[in-house]
């Protein structure tokens, strides 16, 4: 009874508004353009949703710097950065399709709920036509789902979980960053050559989508070469003290500790592990080892001395062009403009966010439309070069980028405070490529692209 009353009120209300709307020269957004937030004036708004608080705040801050730099370059400011080396030449410094790029920022707080609220307000209030950012796969998956529903493009930033382009993939979402499977595939041969095939691993894993898939991938890859997995312990993402998790490791019979942690988590757990003397310890007659599958310069800086000699994988490194030659062209151009603006080299999070912004702008230019479906079509199976990762392709069947993976380790004798990791090896694309229906990525479907209202 009450509900029917409610409905009638609602219907009356809506029809009254509709009547008033028809009487006046008004337009519905949808009828005008056919997609959500079509830019009308001479500007276009992008939404950058990054963690400014929480365990990934450092990465978030660096992502934001990269976004600002990308917008500056798109609008013709600065030295153009990677626009000079990008294999596509559609971007000429006049914004996107002649519209000046503006941006709004938001704080995801590294929480799915807050991230979605922030992204919703960017879409509904600020009229953002593309959302980018991330720094936590949980957040990225949540925001990607929201963008799919709202009908805007999501250019994932730092998100490394297999699920982002696996079981939670979405037609409106695109990821440039590599993933847990690729990390594991790249690291396995290196781990084998460093520590042999007879090892027992103990996993500490961040308890959310990224940690789960990272652990699963590393376990599968290491077990394939003969390692044994002793135990996997899940740790809450908001944890800051890992002593209670580290203490049982030495008694477990394991001789390798795999820290499936990232950002502030990894800095703290590694520091705890070193304090507990794991690095000097002996187990099963071998030196105890620590492995950090996903690595970054920012974490290395946070962990300081403790990071020395510890192997991991990266999407990109700022020294890669200097050390490995012009295959990775674009790196130096980006590092130069980033360094000039902020005074230090960019992290991999910054590089992926910068690249994503450029890729989006370029896709809009090639599609000659901001319509998310047109942009998605332009990005699918798109091959490009000159953004610092070597030749790269966006696979159409799962919206994942395929490119080389960098295996690194903490440098023993850093020359300066930014030179903390050394490149051990670059694993070529073919070695980290998998089929779209690989079991670790199955269970989801892109669905169809949604242009929104």
């Amino acid at each position: 009874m009450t509900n029917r009353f409610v409905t009638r009120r609602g219907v009356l209300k809506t029809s009254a508004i509709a009547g008033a709307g028809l009487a006046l020269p008004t337009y519905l957004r949808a009828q005008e353009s056919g997609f959500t937030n079509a830019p009308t004036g001479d500007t276009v708004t992008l939404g950058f949703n990054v963690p400014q608080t929480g365990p990934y705040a450092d990465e978030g801050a660096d992502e934001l710097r990269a976004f600002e730099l990308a917008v500056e370059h798109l609008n013709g400011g600065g030295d153009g950065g990677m626009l000079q080396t990008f294999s596509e030449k559609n971007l000429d410094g006049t914004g996107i399709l002649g519209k000046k790029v503006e941006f709004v920022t938001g704080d995801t707080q590294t929480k799915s709920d807050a991230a979605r609220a922030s992204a919703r307000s960017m879409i509904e209030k600020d009229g953002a036509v593309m959302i980018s950012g991330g720094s936590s796969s949980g957040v990225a998956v949540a925001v990607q789902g929201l963008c799919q529903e709202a009908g805007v493009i999501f250019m994932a930033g730092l998100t490394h979980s297999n699920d982002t382009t696996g079981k939670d993939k979405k037609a409106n979402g695109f990821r440039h960053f590599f993933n847990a499977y690729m990390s594991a595939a790249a690291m396995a041969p290196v781990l084998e050559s460093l520590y042999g095939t007879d090892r027992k691993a103990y996993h500490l894993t961040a308890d959310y989508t990224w940690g789960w898939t990272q652990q699963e991938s590393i376990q599968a890859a290491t077990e394939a070469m003969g390692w044994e997995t002793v135990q996997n312990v899940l740790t809450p993402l908001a944890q800051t003290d890992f002593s209670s998790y580290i203490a049982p490791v030495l008694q477990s019979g394991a001789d390798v500790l795999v820290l499936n942690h990232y950002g502030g988590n990894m800095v703290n757990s590694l520091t705890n592990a070193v304090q507990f003397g794991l690095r000097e310890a002996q187990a099963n007659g071998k030196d105890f080892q620590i492995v950090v599958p996903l690595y970054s310069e920012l974490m290395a800086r946070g962990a300081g001395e403790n990071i020395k000699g510890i192997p991991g994988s990266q999407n990109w490194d700022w020294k890669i062009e200097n050390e490995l030659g012009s295959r990775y062209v674009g790196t130096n151009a980006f590092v130069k403009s980033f360094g000039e603006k902020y005074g230090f080299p960019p992290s991999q999070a910054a590089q992926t966010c910068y690249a994503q912004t450029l890729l989006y702008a370029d896709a809009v230019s090639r599609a000659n439309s901001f319509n998310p479906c047109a942009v998605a079509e332009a990005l699918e199976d798109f091959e490009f070069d000159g953004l610092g990762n070597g030749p790269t392709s966006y696979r159409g069947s799962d919206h994942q980028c395929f490119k080389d993976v960098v295996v690194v380790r903490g440098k023993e004798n850093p020359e300066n405070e930014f030179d903390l990791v050394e490149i051990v090896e670059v694993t070529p694309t073919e070695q980290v490529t998998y089929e779209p229906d690989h079991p670790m990525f199955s269970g989801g479907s892109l669905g169809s692209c949604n242009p929104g209202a």
Partner: protein
Amino acid sequence: MLGLGKKDLSLLILVAVLTMLAPFLLNPFPTDSGLAQFNAGYPDLMQRFVIFGIFAIGFNILFGLTGYLSFGHAAFLGVGSYAAVWMFKLLSMNVVPAIILSVIIAGVFALAIGYISLRRSGIYFSILTLAFAQMSFALAYSVLTPITNGETGLQIALDDPRILGVSQTEDGSIPVTHFFGIEMRATEVLRLGGWEFQFSAGYYLCALVMLVAFYLAIRIFRSPFGMMLRAVKSNQQRLYYTGLNARPYTLAAFVISGMYAGLAGGLLASMDPLAGAERMQWTASGEVVLMTILGGAGTLIGPVLGAGFIKYFENIFSKLNDNVLHGWFAFLPDGLEDFVVTIVHPFVGKGWHLTLGLMFMAVVIFLPGGLVEGGQRIARLFRRRKASDEHRAAQETPAE
């Protein structure tokens, strides 16, 4: 009418008018003006205003009437959200069963927690509820991951069964939440000159639910049951000495207020089908306490005002970054501009908590009755001025 006194009826009508016209009232600035930053009339925030309004109204039934300060109310909101999302996953995307189930589950949950916690009063009761809420949070965050999906948050997926609905739409995407066919995210945009007003179906559903919730709260406040609750607040000892057992009354109030929280959680999930564990964290419980005290505990409209106030700060002030500040103060000479921006910087953006904290202190110190007391003082000021002219004006003071 509706079994309400004249004063309450006019308050209800006022609230109804305000919520129905919210898309206009909250968007006072043209979209391309610099002040558009302060517009709050977009669906997400308007929905939050009314949903957290419901949450605070419910909390106020417990805290405002009985004086029992629950510090774990967010647990009920979280449980309601999870229940609603599970309904979307298993049954259908219609919001009605989801909301009903979230209210029921939250009620059962509140009964269990209330039964134990209400054995103590005062600070011990607060600590007990806090402990239960933190336990629920920890369970949702890690132990019960199969049910809650932990940190990632419970989301709907393409392969959910949805036995009364469809698993996926014809074009292969996840169906959206709806109220018998009216999509919750459907939004009509009205453009008048430089202004842009958004009318969201989801908002109007939430607003109507809030009006019902508000009406029920008025009835509870004015009922003999409400009188008993007030008696508990003023002197529980005396109640016991007169031979009355206060526990059933407080337990009923606790369950009702838990159901309100569940309703808010269910609506939150209906507007955006995702439930995260952080909804149950103690900070979320603290927030509703702040809302109620800021608005005016024990008053009818206070909690709604407080909820709106805090959500406005959270969503609008937190978005002001240095770029915006530089835009505002660009007219000042360079050095002075930077100086002013440096001074203002800690109070906006990430520092919105600081501004809110200062406002909260000011309210508690100067207006112990909350924003409602502020309104009353202003009203009294006008009345006094008017009273010298005509005495009739005294009857027109806003209720509460």
